[in-house]
């Protein structure tokens, strides 16, 4: 699937899809989107989720920043800011170890976009947050941060 998507991104997509543009069934953007990584998103433990996402356990990278509150009173909305200083970072993924489904988001960047994102998570309980960066050379890097949650956000 990844292969197919890359091919579409590289070119030819406009030509392939142009006859369909008039149809409301197929928007060009929607058609281009990568297929949802079901094995990784439905994995129920952090180790399974990391494995399914293709991130082997490695040492902590200093070039990934995670800004998050140390203590969050409301687990239904926890702001985190992530960025990478690793050259040619192509994607950032966020995992919460103790969430029922640990993989929260996987974001791919291309063109002029910086490897940076600010987003809001639901956290079930106090947990470690891991951010995995993938670089153009195919390597994965990981950093983490622990967040205390006073009121869990999954039943909220």
């Amino acid at each position, binding site marked *: 699937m990844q292969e197919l998507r890359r091919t579409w991104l590289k070119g030819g997509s406009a030509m392939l899809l142009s006859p369909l543009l008039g149809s409301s069934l197929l928007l060009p953007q929607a058609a281009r989107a990568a297929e949802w990584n079901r094995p990784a*998103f439905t994995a129920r433990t952090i180790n399974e989720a990391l494995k399914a996402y293709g991130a082997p356990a490695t040492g902590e990278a200093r070039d990934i920043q995670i800004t998050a509150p140390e203590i969050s009173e409301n687990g239904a909305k926890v702001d985190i800011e992530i960025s990478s200083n690793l050259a040619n970072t192509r994607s950032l993924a966020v995992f919460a170890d103790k969430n029922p489904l640990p993989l929260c988001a996987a974001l791919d960047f*291309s063109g002029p976009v910086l490897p940076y994102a600010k*987003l809001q998570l639901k956290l079930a309980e106090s947990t470690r947050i891991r951010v995995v960066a993938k670089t153009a050379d195919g390597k994965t890097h990981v950093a983490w941060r622990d967040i205390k949650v006073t009121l869990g*956000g999954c039943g909220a």
Partner: protein
Amino acid sequence: MAEQIKIRALLQGEIADIRILMQHPMETGQRRNEQGQLLPSHFIQNFTVNLNGKPIIDGQLNTSIAKNPLFTFRSRGIKAGDKLSVAWTDNLGEKRQDEVTVG
């Protein structure tokens, strides 16, 4: 019908902040209603951000993203007059797409 996606680009010198608000319940599938029945999961799975028709961000999300997902991204090379569009698809096949012109 899903609500409009709010897209805003803040130009600050070379780097622009792109703020995107996708209004969506992001139901986890773990909450129960008053009768004790589980509410089925309903969440955005994919979204794509395009700059002048070219994809620049491709996101995949889980139920653990907060209700009404709000994202900030950063990009170089965005100028007034550029077109930014965002499209999402959720797990029930609902879609929404909106576009703004950077002012």
